[in-house]
């Protein structure tokens, strides 16, 4: 296949990929993914009451003070 035709095919796919990315960006704006509130709270999403901020999480098995082992 000659160069121009191959480039047209590649560019077509790249346009599809770009369009998908742009659609993702538009979706993000519309669903307020970039709102100040979301940006301020987003970093805390991986934490919850059971795995709170301030508690290292690299320990699934630990022995609490009452002596019985615990599964986190």
């Amino acid at each position: 296949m000659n160069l121009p035709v191959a480039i047209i095919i590649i560019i077509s796919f790249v346009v599809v990929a770009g369009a998908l990315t742009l659609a993702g960006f538009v979706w993000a704006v519309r669903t307020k993914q970039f709102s100040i509130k979301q940006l301020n709270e987003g970093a805390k999403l991986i934490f919850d009451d059971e795995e709170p901020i301030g508690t290292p999480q690299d320990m699934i098995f630990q022995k609490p003070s009452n002596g019985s082992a615990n599964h986190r």
Partner: protein
Amino acid sequence: MAAQTTAKEQFVSFASEAVEDVSERQHRVHIDDSVTSPVVLYFATGIAWLVLGSLAGLGAAVKFNLPDWLGGTPFLTFGRIRPVHLNAVMYGWASLAGAGMVVWLTGRLCRVPIQKTWALYVSAILWNIGVLFGVVALLFGYNQGMEWLEFPRPAGGLIALGFLFFAYSIIETFRKRQVEHLYVSMWYILASMLWFPILYVVANLGIYDGVTEAAMNWWFAHNALAVWFTPVGLAGAYYFIPKVIGRPIYSYYLGLLGFWAFALFYNWNGIHHLVGGPLPTWLVTVSIVASVMMFVPVMAVAVNHHLTTIGHFRMLKYSPTLRFVVFGSMSYTAVSFQGSIESLRSFSEVAHFTHYTIGHAHLGVYGFLSMILFGAIYYIMPRIAKWEWPYPKLIKLHFWMSAIGIALYVIAMCTGGWIQGTMMNDPSLPFIASVNATKPYLWARSVGGTMMLIGHLAFAYQFILIIYRSGPTRYVPAWFELRQASGSEESKPV
């Protein structure tokens, strides 16, 4: 044996019962349980390919030192085991282990059990058959002749199909998510679900030849990193570093800025591999400009991860996951800066077509991605197996063998490669002089590769133990050193 079984059963039963009455914890455990079998399948097969790929890589490395070694056996010649190494570790180890981590992270980040788990089984089976078929074909000498695309097209088709089933499950889970906002790791995961299938299908269309084929080859090879391997590694780093430390990422703003800058610049990078080649100059120049612009997202990631970790470096002393992931994150910064500089024409004049490029590639795929995947697996497996890693000393062995091995490898290859390039550019020297000058560095590479293989064997052995819930029963975290604050002690083997 009976006593051992009883103790294990009691412990597993206890571990399960301990979570029953706590709804949030129960929900999270339920999410983890929904992915147990597929994640173990991805990890187990990925680790099998890691060991096989490492053996092939070490064999190829030793052949630089002993060119006649195994040269009489056709399927063990350099031209066959070198592509076996590359494809087994990229499409076997890194892709399958990465897929396992992505599945687990998606459940956690969408806060919902993984949907369409049947698609994950189909995906893992197709993917493994594709890699196996491709590896056997390479050993028998069937090779498409393009780096990163050596597998015969049917093998590539199976892998592409496997990825589509995998993406289907991830996107379905995303659609059922229980969270309003997407964490930055999820951005990287979703982007790779959209981009990688397009890239892989376009690259395997088979409509290219000549210069076009070379352009497509490097557009694909570099973008495989851009749209699949790097997003997976960064998704892991953005989750595990703050999670293990217990501190939110330093700047969420920087995180999203980094993602969108990454999306904008990375996919243009591939053609810098063809500096000096017979391509339109503007095409190469655009690629170089985009490569240099990668400083923006890389700085965003580097600053973010460093400032998240700062003040908590002591945890690197204890936590295997954190140590592996932070090593990977630091390697990402190093390899990205190195890559941006390497794309410049003046630098390429020396480094191109030398061992320097091999050192760079290993820093990225091993120092960055593989180290993050190791850390992720050390974090995830105890949660889904409900069994702690039995031997922290083996984790320590794994870490140091991998860390020293890759450091030795990269330093040797980059130094030797630069010397090689300088000598090849000197018309007064015969070509063989540049070959002889690299010999000590090639030995260092073989030593580094051997160390990494030893680490992988220790890792694989522990992985087998944890999936069978074997080895000593541990009621405490498998840290490198137990912190006094935990007040814990290791149980004796039963």
